[in-house]
């Protein structure tokens, strides 16, 4: 793959980019370019069908109305599902977890059918869970703690086919009290962590990239290491 340009799909940034999650695609592209790969971001908006031929995909958070528009679009143009079926990595953040599940209930109680890539469902929690999160990854290939900022009302429950991404050390994760964050199923990795997630967790970025281009040489960025030290030590307020 390395000889051609790696194409990173930024899925529906016009409706699913509320919390800077578009940054994940920038981190992926730059971590490839710094190692000599050609890479580009392909933004897929509500005016485009979703292509199935990109190398990996990222999806971000959204508010209720926007989340519903995104869900409808992804079901109408199932390029993402086709790409996942052939093993293309997909990173789904926050509301995107809910969109990729079987269904989610909005804060007003309405049940919306999801894309069905992930064996999970989401219902509103009594209170929004907001704050810094630290978690311990549970999947092979990740050894460093994950850091991020969560801000969601929906509480997600995994089915048997989806495994958690991480055990929560501090914060709520999928649902307050359950002690786990995110979901991993097939080539899809999902988490409630903003920050953006990959800016704070370069090991996860490189894990996703290695599934596209093979093993990567290390890329140490002092400021990223410093950011991790600062955020992993930051207390959760409230």
């Amino acid at each position: 793959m390395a000889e051609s340009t790696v194409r990173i799909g930024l899925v529906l940034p016009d409706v699913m980019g509320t919390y800077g999650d578009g940054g994940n695609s920038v981190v992926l592209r730059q971590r490839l370019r710094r190692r000599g790969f050609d890479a580009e971001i392909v933004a897929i908006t509500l005016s485009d069908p979703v292509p199935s031929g990109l190398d990996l995909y990222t999806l971000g958070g959204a508010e209720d109305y926007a989340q519903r528009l995104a869900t409808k679009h992804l079901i109408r143009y199932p390029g993402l599902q086709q790409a996942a079926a052939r093993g293309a990595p997909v990173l789904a953040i926050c509301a995107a977890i809910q969109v990729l599940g079987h269904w989610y209930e909005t804060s007003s109680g309405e049940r919306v059918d999801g894309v069905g890539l992930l064996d999970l469902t989401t219902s509103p929690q009594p209170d929004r869970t907001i704050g810094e999160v630290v978690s311990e990854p549970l999947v092979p290939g990740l050894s460093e703690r994950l850091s991020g900022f969560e801000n969601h009302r929906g509480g997600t429950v995994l089915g048997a086919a989806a495994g958690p991404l991480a055990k929560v050390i501090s914060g709520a994760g999928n649902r307050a009290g359950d002690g786990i964050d995110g979901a991993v199923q097939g080539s899809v990795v999902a988490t409630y962590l903003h920050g953006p997630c990959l800016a704070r967790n370069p090991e996860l970025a490189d894990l996703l990239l290695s599934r596209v281009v093979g093993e990567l040489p290390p890329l140490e960025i002092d400021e990223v290491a410093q950011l991790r030290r600062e955020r992993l030590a930051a207390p959760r307020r409230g």
Partner: protein
Amino acid sequence: MITSPVFRGKRYAVLGLARSGLASVEALVASGASVTAWDNREEARDAVAGKAEIADLLSLDLIGYEGVVVSPGVPLNRHPITARAAAAGVPIIGDIELFAQARQTLPPHRVVGVTGTNGKSTTTRMTATALGTLGPSEPQGRRHQTVATNAEGANMDAGLVAALAGARDAGLAALEVDEMHVPHVADAVDPAVIVLLNLSRDQLDRVGEINLIERTLRDGLARHPSTVVVANCDDVLMTSAAYDSPHVVWVAAGGGWANDSVSCPRSGEIIVRDGSHWYSTGTDFKRPTPQWWFDDANIYGPDGLSLPMTLALPGTVNRGNATQAVAAAVTLGADPAAAVAAVSGVDEVAGRYRTVQLGAHSVRMLLAKNPAGWQEALSMVDTDAGSVVISVNGQVPDGEDLSWLWDVNFEHFVDKPVVAAGERGTDLAVRLGYAGVEHSLVHNAVEAITSCPPGHVEVVANYTAFLQLNRTLGRGGRGPLGQERSDRGSSG
């Protein structure tokens, strides 16, 4: 100072002694009430010594108190005072409710409220200045040119009582109001005019989602049908908030940030944009025809009004703010030409836009708090003029979640080295690194400025970073900048 016989002989507790709490203590004591006050900061308690009894309200029996006045900065949803007050059957109120109680005993006055994500302080300052042109031609021959205002860039705890203290004699007030506070402020002061500027994502961890804010504004305005709403029809969300009001003055004040209104706030369907026009595909909701608009040279208004407008403040966004301020003042009877002249002279708002000298550096200060504000601020940064310092904090008033840094197009500085500063300077440095922007990281903002070559420095900072730096520069650059917290009522 507001004094009112309604407070005489009553007992109040005041929690949090920043500007708002202090003004409440002074107004209550001057009105003949007895006050018990507390703030976790000793120097704040010292400021009310001799006026109020000092005691920690959490160890006090609150039975018999008329109310607990709580600073807007106190998080009531998780502060123990909420349960203590409830147990004693004492209501928790804000300074605005105090004002509402005193209102019927005060001389008549008219209030203009200004709200929106960005431009509140600037537009409030411009509105106050424009209202100041209302002269002796007012009813009853009163001279109304004194205008009370809180345009200090600290709308949450600026203290509406402190601002309205001047309204006792002024008869006119221009108040910047936090978006979520609009309903209860409107209920308390029954504003003559509400100015709606723009809504976009801002401090999502503190304020909440944007559609909820629009609904809150819409519901609040519905209770005040006689209020004239001066609304920006280029902003989909503000248009929705104003759409059902019987008296709306539509202003094309501009809207460069459409990313938070791809979906219709009234139907959830897509908003289609066609040049400056927009419409919803889900319901009968479209851009109204503006009565006021502007271009690079002029301001235009009803009945063919056209006047040259040259502002002291930079940026297209401020021309939009000025147009809304003029429209608000004209609604209350100001002469358009006088109002335009007044807003044109505004050259600094609570330290923003001003240039100060710091040793061998001249420093121009810009404030930006969220992606839409940054987009505007970056367009005002003069990269040819000298160096660029960007300072970012993540305190509660800023929002602790700085993910929005990735919604800002810092690739703008790809040919210009930037010094990253502030308590969360590392977050910014990582963002700049991935944007391919050459940068250094100096957390202390004063040291960041002095690290630049002598000459001009453009500084962009977010909320508490701006307040800290503004205060430190006011002291000639001396002071414990790195350790200083923002000036808010502390009570937890």
